[in-house]
Each structure stands twice: as C-alpha cells, then as structure tokens.
C-alpha cells in the first residue's frame, strides 16, 4: 500500500485532471464504500420481524443447502439456478407446504435427485425454507408502477 499511496500523491498521479482533486475524489469514494458496507452489514438489513432471524435448525439447513449445492438448480428471490423452481415461498405456497417440501427432499421428483438425507437433515432443510419464506414474497406480481420506474412493493417491503 506504500507504493499505492505514492501513486496517489503527486509524483505518479495523473496529470491534466488535477492530481489533488483526483486523489480526494478517489478516497471520498472509498470512504463512502466503507460507510455503505458498514450500514449494509448492520442496520440496513436488520429484520423488522424476529421471524427473519434463522434459528439453529434453520442455520444447519442453510449449511446443508450449500453442501448439496441446491443453488445450482434453485433460487431464492430469483437468485440462483434455473433448472428447478424458486423456493422462496415453497413452504407457504398453495398446494405445497412443509410436508410437500420434506417429501420432495426425501424422494426426489422429476429432475430433482434423491438427496439421501436423514430425517433430521430433511427437517433442518425444511426449517431453513420456512425461515426464508418468512422474509417476504417472491415472485412479485404487483404492477403498481411509479413514475420513477420503481414499483410500490419495492417501497413497502423495505425493512
């Protein structure tokens, strides 16, 4: 970083654009990035509802979700693979629910392989899916668009 700082002082900095101004702009941006990161890690993603916090079973389920690489095929809030359905609300969706999820995890279904999990592991995975479902709704089917190119639910679901 010493060398990097040397660049940012006058000798190696860019000419014509104002070395000092350039340095200030660069560090202001980095400072704002640090501030934004701190807020994102803490208050801005704090849950308004305690249901959003994962309990022990759900945290074990989250680890299993990674170990089985479920994200290769499935999504939360539209983020993940496209071979299988989005799982954000699978435990609360009409015609599905925790038992449905548990059965699919145990036996597989269509393209979904049998994961050969234990009953405890299946329970942990379902606990995780229930915790995710408690965070919000996806997909969004509200078409209340604003003049600013946003939509109402984007404003109302903010914690």
């Amino acid at each position, binding site marked *: 970083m010493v060398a990097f700082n040397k660049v940012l002082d006058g000798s190696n900095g860019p000419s014509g654009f104002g070395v000092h101004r350039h340095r200030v702009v660069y560090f202001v941006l980095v400072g704002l990035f640090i501030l934004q990161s701190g807020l994102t890690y803490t208050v*801005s993603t704090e849950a308004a509802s305690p249901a959003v916090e994962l309990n022990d079973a759900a945290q074990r389920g989250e680890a299993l979700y990674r170990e089985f690489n479920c*994200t290769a095929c499935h999504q939360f809030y539209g983020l993940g693979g496209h071979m299988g359905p989005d799982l954000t609300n699978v435990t609360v969706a009409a015609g599905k629910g925790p038992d449905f999820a548990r059965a699919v995890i145990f036996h597989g279904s269509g393209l979904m392989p049998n994961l050969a999990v234990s009953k405890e592991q299946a329970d942990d995975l379902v606990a995780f899916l229930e915790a995710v479902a408690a965070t919000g709704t996806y997909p969004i089917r509200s078409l209340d668009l604003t003049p600013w190119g946003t939509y109402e639910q984007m404003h109302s679901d903010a914690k």
Partner: protein
Amino acid sequence: MRSELTPAKGFVISGLLSLLCGALFGVIGSWQHVLPNFVDAIPFVKSRPLHVSLVIAWIFLTAVGGVYHYLPKIVGVPLHSTRLAWLHLAVFIGTGFAVIASYFLGRFGGREYWEFPPALGIPIALSWSLLIYNFFRTANKHKGPWPAYLWMWATGVVFFLITYAEANLYLFPHFTSNMVRELTVQWKAYGALTGSWNLLVYGTAMVVMERSTGNTAIARSKLAYLLFGLGFTNLLFGWAHHIYPVPSALWIRILAYAISMTEWIILARMIHQWRATMEDGKNGSSTLFGRFLFASEVWVFLNLGVALLISIPAINLFAHGTHVIVAHAMGSTIGINTTILFASVFFIGERAHSGPTRAGFWIFNGSLLAFWLCLLGAGIVKGWFTVMTDLPFQKITEKIWPFIAGFAVSGIGLFTGLSLLVWGALKVLLASNNKEEGDAHGTVELDAIPVENRCPSMPEKVMQHQR
C-alpha cells in the same frame, strides 16, 4: 523455434485450456436442460459449477497474464519478481485442480459461483496477494503520471481481494443468521467482484488499443479518467440491481438504481465514438485482434443496453430470476470479457492468423449471438408468465423449451468456435515470431507496427479532441 515460456504466457495458456474445459462442461450443462440424463456421470449439480469456475478461471488467468505481460513493457523495467509470478501461477493452478476435484467428488460448501469448500479460498487469496505485491513494486517505477489503465489495474487487483473476502463473510453467523442480510451482502460482494475483474479486462483492452494504435494520449485524457471514475463508482455502489426483490433497506436499492443510470453516459459516449469510427471507415477487419476489439465494442453496446434496461426496477420486475439475467451474464463474460481477452492473446501471440482461426472468430460470434438471443427470448417469455399468470414452474418451462433447445444447439457452435480460437491461440503463443514479445525490457516500437495492422476501432477522431 519455440518461444521462452514466461509466467505471463503460463497464465494465458492455462487460461485457454481452462476456457476449453469450461466450455465443454457448459455444453454438457446446457444439454442437460434438454435431455435430463445427458452425461449422467456428471449431473447438472456438478457440471454447472465446473463450467462456471473454469470460465471464471479463464478470465482471471488471462487477465492476470496480460497484466504480467504488459506491465513491464509499460513501465520500462522487468517485472519486480518473476519467481513470485511463477509461484502465483503454481498456487493458482494447484488450487484450481483441488477445486475441480472437489466438484467431481460432490464436495461443495460454498455459495453460488464459488461452490467449492471455503478453505480453498485461502490459497486463492494468498496467491492474489503475491500479484498485488508484484504489481505495485513494478508499477511504482513508472515514470510520470499513471495512464488510466494502470489505475484500472491497481484498483482491480486491490478490490478483487477486498470483495473476495467480503464474498466469504457468510462464514460468520452474523451474516447467515439473517437471510435478507446474507443475500444482500452476497450480491454486494459479487457485484463489486465482477466490477473488479472487469477493471482488469477493460484496462487490458485499453493497453492493446494504445499499443496497436501508438496513440498514448487515449489513456491519459480527462475522458479516460472520467470513465474510469464512473466505472469505479458503479463497482462500489451499483450492485443492488441484482437484489431489487430482496426486502432490504430501500435506500440500498434506490442508490443502486440511481448509480446504474449513470451508465447511460457511457452508452451515449459509445454511440458518439462509434459514429466517429464509422465515419473514418475503419472497422478493425485487418487483424484478428482488431476484429476482436471491434466485436467487443458490439457486445459492450448490446450488453450495456440490456444492463441499463434491467436496472430499471419496473423492467427488472419481469427480467429478474429469468434467462434475461443469464443472457446478460453470458453476454458480459463471453461477449465482452472473452473477446477482449482473445484480442489481447492474439496481440501477444502474433498478428498473422490461419483460416481455421478466422473461421473460429465468425463461428464464435455467430453462435454467441444466437445463444444470447435464445436466452433473451426464454427470459422474456418466462418473465411474462411468472409475473402476469399463476402458471406453475413446470408449465412455464414447457413454454420456453424451444428457446432452451436453441440455446443448447448454439452452445455447440460456441464450443466449436472457441475450440478453433483456442487451438489457433496456443499455436501462435508457442511460436516466437512476434514483435510484441519485444526486447528484454519489453518495450515495443509502436512505429514498427504497420498502419494497416493498427487497431482501428479506437476513436482517434474523438480522442484527437482530448489531446
């Protein structure tokens, strides 16, 4: 006569082999959407991470190879430590083999795009630290002001390490105990991480343009620094368009929306630049690297257009979670990054190129266009039926099947084109008759490059105003 194998060439050759393997797993993965039991020894849960990790490795290896290759030529001194560069390569490749083995064995543990066990991230971070050290020890000897591409590389190498560390914060319960926080921080890190490797790739593009035109004013103009600043701002704050539907704080998403819209400036500048280039009657057709640079401009234009549209929340509502996002990701990594990196590889290697390599260029670009359009079509149909109807996932999948079949077929064409290009690139890299390999200090006489071989896609007319 064989050329001397340098760390830079070692990185680039490893990158090319990585691309070939990654593309092969991509073909397998795409056909598994059409024929579920296709190559069932490597199920989709394995083929997808193998494809993604190897293609990302291609981008890193080749971009870093470019930095190791060009940096001494730019600064005018040898690399600070060739031994450290070799060590970097050895650790990176050794870790790469461990990652591949973990996927084949079904040992996951990481998150999307980095699904390997998190312990393997430690040697990746350590080897990257060697690059940072080597980079700054060498770059610090540069006489005079830094051109924009050195700023881009410096920022890219440092911010990659920062954002890679951030991408591993999920190892702390504070992050995984809250899914909203977990998803937000994950995509914050991924957005910035992508931005950091883009800085490495775009910096390389600027170097190739400078060295092929001989116009050193391009990377030292106010406009170049301004565009770097804009890109850096987007890297830092423009990531949240990935998570518009995630119920995090509103300001996070609105800030990203506002920042993303500044990229219209880049788009407007591109159109202006393009018009100037076209008026000059130059389209980069005389050399292979020139063609790749021109192709990268086309892909930047197309992908930036899509990126800007999907950054508008009302449009994102339909595009998010669909193949439109895949088209954007593939268009960026293949269309932009890969074309720029091939331009760099063929500029490093040689200016002459054989018929099969020329054919590879056209097969690659033609197939990629079909591939990209199929993904966009699938995404638009899926987005419409997801938002406007209650159709179940299976029914929507049936509706997009023709697009997915087209995507799988064009993937074979893409693999064929890439194979021809990789073969041609390996041949010229292992030969020695190229100017860019240069003298001991790597300084290349730009005037030695014939005018007809200079990269014409640079906006000389525009840039003359900046001098």
